[in-house]
């Protein structure tokens, strides 16, 4: 506006004051590298979704909802050949659509949705980890929609989202081979580069490398793996994967109890 002298206009761009503050210097407290934070899991809480789950681990809060199976629009994709295991032909198999969203207030800086590349990458990671577990051959020409919403990021967000998504799918009654349990790890920077299980946000920020593993506990198959950073030689990554798988196995009984409780709740609500 030409020559507007009456209003005081603030700066066009603003940054949060933490960026200019001196570095806190508080190193994350030393802790047992194999400790898992206590987890609160609840399934079957949203009335509008077919299946839903809420997972809280430390400061990380994830809410996941599943809807479907819904008929796929867009006609057939051509009679494809039968899949490798003699399952339903590729064109008839169902589809799993995953969506990962971060609430704008989830991290330290406000990030308005759409979050761009990172959310797409995590949604793809969710899909790749959940597909081995879901019997998509039983839902021909249908699609299942899984949407995960991260309410607060307190470390290992993707792992929590994976676990919540698997719980929500089980709560929705989708046929699955096994649950998928996710676990996050991070490697502390030099000196003392040890792999820490289930890192907090502070540990993740200062980490030299991060890894998320997704395991199907009963079948003992790795459903998903995503890691990056200066992890060092392959032996170090192998040790991290082993630690992560062990963490997933330890988390499994909690999820079983959660699903049993949800089923009882649903039974009690339906009977009278």
């Amino acid at each position, binding site marked *: 506006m030409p020559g507007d002298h009456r209003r005081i206009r603030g700066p066009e761009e603003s*940054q949060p004051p933490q*960026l200019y503050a001196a570095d806190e210097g508080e190193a994350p407290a030393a802790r047992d590298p194999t400790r898992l934070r206590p987890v609160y899991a609840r399934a079957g809480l949203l009335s509008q979704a077919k299946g839903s789950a809420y997972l809280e681990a430390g400061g990380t809060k994830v809410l996941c909802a599943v809807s479907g199976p819904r008929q796929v629009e867009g006609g057939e994709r051509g009679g*494809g*050949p*039968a899949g*490798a295991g003699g399952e339903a032909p590729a064109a008839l198999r169902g589809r799993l659509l995953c969506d990962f969203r971060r609430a704008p207030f989830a991290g330290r800086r406000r990030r308005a949705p759409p979050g761009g*590349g*990172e959310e*797409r*990458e995590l949604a*793809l990671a969710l899909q*790749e*980890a959940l*597909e*081995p*577990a879901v019997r998509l051959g039983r839902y021909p020409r249908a699609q299942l929609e899984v949407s995960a919403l991260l309410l607060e990021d307190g470390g290992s967000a993707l792992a929590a989202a994976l676990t919540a998504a698997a719980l929500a799918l089980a709560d929705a009654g989708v046929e699955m081979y096994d649950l998928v349990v996710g676990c996050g790890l991070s490697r502390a920077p030099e000196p003392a580069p040890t792999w820490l299980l289930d890192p907090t946000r502070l540990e993740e920020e200062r980490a*030299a*490398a991060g*890894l998320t593993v997704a395991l*199907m506990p009963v*079948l*003992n*198959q*790795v*459903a*998903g*793996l*995503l*890691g*990056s*950073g*200066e*992890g*060092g*030689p*392959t032996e170090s*990554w*192998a040790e991290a*994967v*082993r630690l992560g*798988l062990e963490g997933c196995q330890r988390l499994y009984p909690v999820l079983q109890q959660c699903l049993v409780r949800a089923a009882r709740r649903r039974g009690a609500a339906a009977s009278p």
Partner: protein
Amino acid sequence: MASVSLSEAEKVYIVHGVQEDLRVDGRGCEDYRCVEVETDVVSNTSGSARVKLGHTDILVGVKAEMGTPKLEKPNEGYLEFFVDCSANATPEFEGRGGDDLGTEIANTLYRIFNNKSSIDLKSLCISPREHCWVLYVDVLLLECGGNLFDAISVAVKAALFNTRIPRVRVLEDEEGSKDIELSDDPYDCIRLSVENVPCIVTLCKIGYRHVVDATLQEEACSLASLLVSVTSKGVVTCMRKVGKGSLDPESIFEMMETGKRVGKVLHTSLQSVLHKEESLGPKRQKVGFLG
């Protein structure tokens, strides 16, 4: 990825062959197809490279432009990746079809460069907090013949090796205003050190064994693959499981070891080829797109 229809018998043939360490084109499980690398193919860029791996054809152009450093890292420049899957590669990429694959590849590239040692970002800084070099790495997928990630990472490494960033100086006046001066000599430029730039090795699980550098047909037979990004020293910078199936934990450890072994060999041969091409000097005969 481009899809190819295979009959049940063809799949069985491929799977059984792989069990015996014999693939359809006669390679072993850990052999790459013939790779052709050529740098400096596009004249308008700061660096470019073209890689042909079997039927896969990738063209990478790097442009260095001046920008402002990111707030969290005021002393460093940065890289921006963009991957374009053109409709020439396969008819599935027509219109917006190739966007998903493009974003997936770009995100993987961001991930493998997301650590301090891959590339020296401090050398890209001109004046802290104000000016830095931003390298826009644009990848063009010309033809899709399987094993995209490996070919793209080799092309990106070759293009970064070929990148020549002009040398600039920041001059300060008496009033304190800064002026950027470009040196007069067009050949006076900084080169990047690509010693620690990683390369991706994709290992596809077929039956009970895994193969390196799968063709489209082999990719159709495999349910899950592991993508490992290895530097020339054997340090792993990224790991990712790709595909609809699941992997056994033991096979993951085996695949990582294979990936490291194969990655080291890939790096040594790539380095020797790049240095040999460089030593031929500016008068070398360029093959370009006709060879």
